[in-house]
């Protein structure tokens, strides 16, 4: 059974990663819980109010923020997906030869078109 052997090899490689995630998570939670039991707790309304340079906090902190952040987030999603598409191409570069190179040149040209469009539209400006 080549299939089950492959699966075992796969699991053998990924199991330590899973174990690492579990241990890191346990480290975080256990340290927080231990610290919870040894720390002093003297809550006061003054102490619990949020920091605002000494003055009384006014209005809700979850206020509207500039839409620029959204534009950059959207640009990131678009471009990052294009970058992810470059990875399989880069890894197999020497196997796919000239055809792969030309295809990727076309792909990067499309990337550049989108990039130039975003630049000309002023989406990359921050003011």
């Amino acid at each position: 059974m080549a299939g089950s052997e492959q699966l075992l090899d796969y699991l053998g490689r990924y199991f330590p990663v899973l174990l690492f995630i579990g241990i890191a998570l346990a480290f975080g939670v256990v340290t927080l819980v231990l610290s919870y039991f040894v720390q002093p707790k003297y809550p006061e309304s003054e102490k619990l109010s949020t920091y605002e340079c000494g003055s009384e906090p006014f209005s809700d902190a979850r206020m509207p923020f500039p839409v620029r952040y959204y534009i950059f987030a959207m640009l990131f999603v678009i471009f990052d997906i294009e970058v992810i598409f470059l990875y399989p191409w880069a890894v197999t570069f020497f196997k796919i030869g000239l055809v792969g190179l030309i295809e990727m040149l076309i792909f990067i040209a499309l990337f550049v078109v989108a990039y130039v469009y975003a630049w000309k539209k002023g989406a990359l400006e921050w003011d």
Partner: protein
Amino acid sequence: MAELALRMAFSLAQITVVMGVIMLTIMVLTLAERKVLGWMQDRMGPMEVGPYGILQPVADGLKLFFKEDIVPAGANRFLFSLAPILALVAALIGFAVVPFGPDTTIELFGIQFKPFIISDINIGILYILAFTSIGAYGVILGGWASNSKYSLLGGLRSAAQVISYELNVGLAIVGVLLLAGSLSLVKITQAQAGWFWNWYVFAPPFPQLLAFVVYVISAVAETNRVPFDLPEAESELVAGFFTEYSGMRFAFFFIAEYANMILVSCIAAALFLGGWNAPYPGTALARMGFVQFAWVENVVWFAAKVYFFLFLFFWLRATLPRLRYDQLMRFGWKVMLPIALGNILVTAIAAYLFPR
């Protein structure tokens, strides 16, 4: 069954050692940063706790552990607690695929182990990129959950900055992946064996020097370090997204920042500077006849490269003033991105014309 149990026990031991070494390195780094900054400014740095202040990190850690953990009124308690753990875990688990030493195999109780590699998965780089992105959630959730204006603004700034520069990190390493033909950090390091001109930063047919510079600058920006420490700009935002954090939760954000610094240094060393490889073929120890101790030299080389980058972080902090936010975004999107993209194009064409 016994084999499986042994393998699990060995993985567990490896992970424990790696976590211990990371924590120890973070302790050393917190002191080293203050000492290096102090010396660069003609000061002594911390001197009070222990001889020459070497016990300062222990004192800091104990203090934070026993400190009151304040949850501000109006904060979202669940997200407020989740955010630091998320940041910490995301920063630590990247080390699962970093090769700390040569991929030599040792035999213990009849089973083959690789002592310096926790896991050699064939998508190592992708795994690291994916999980370090989760760290951005920790930052923005912490900023939003605090119910403080400074925290919210710091979290937003940080998220926008991290994703902008992550794009450049992703683009900068494509050239290396192309030359190595693999996403596994072990294979990429093996491909750079031999003299130091085989390291991808110098390697023919097209040296990845530009990609290296883009990667290092983007890595500094991604870890929110000076001169890109806008999210925690003291003069504007108090402490940014962790303004309201105290005690152990504050310590987690702190540990996460330093763990991220170590991680990006490890990746830079493995991708561009040959990882565990010495600048000369093989190892000096193996040539002198101590073949079984050759790993010591490899591990020392890897550590030396990582510490070189960590020193660079401190050096930058002592040298450069903080950028303005619009300068930071413009630099990332209009300067770094075209350079990284151009590097991919030139590397691809050069690699096609002059295959090795």
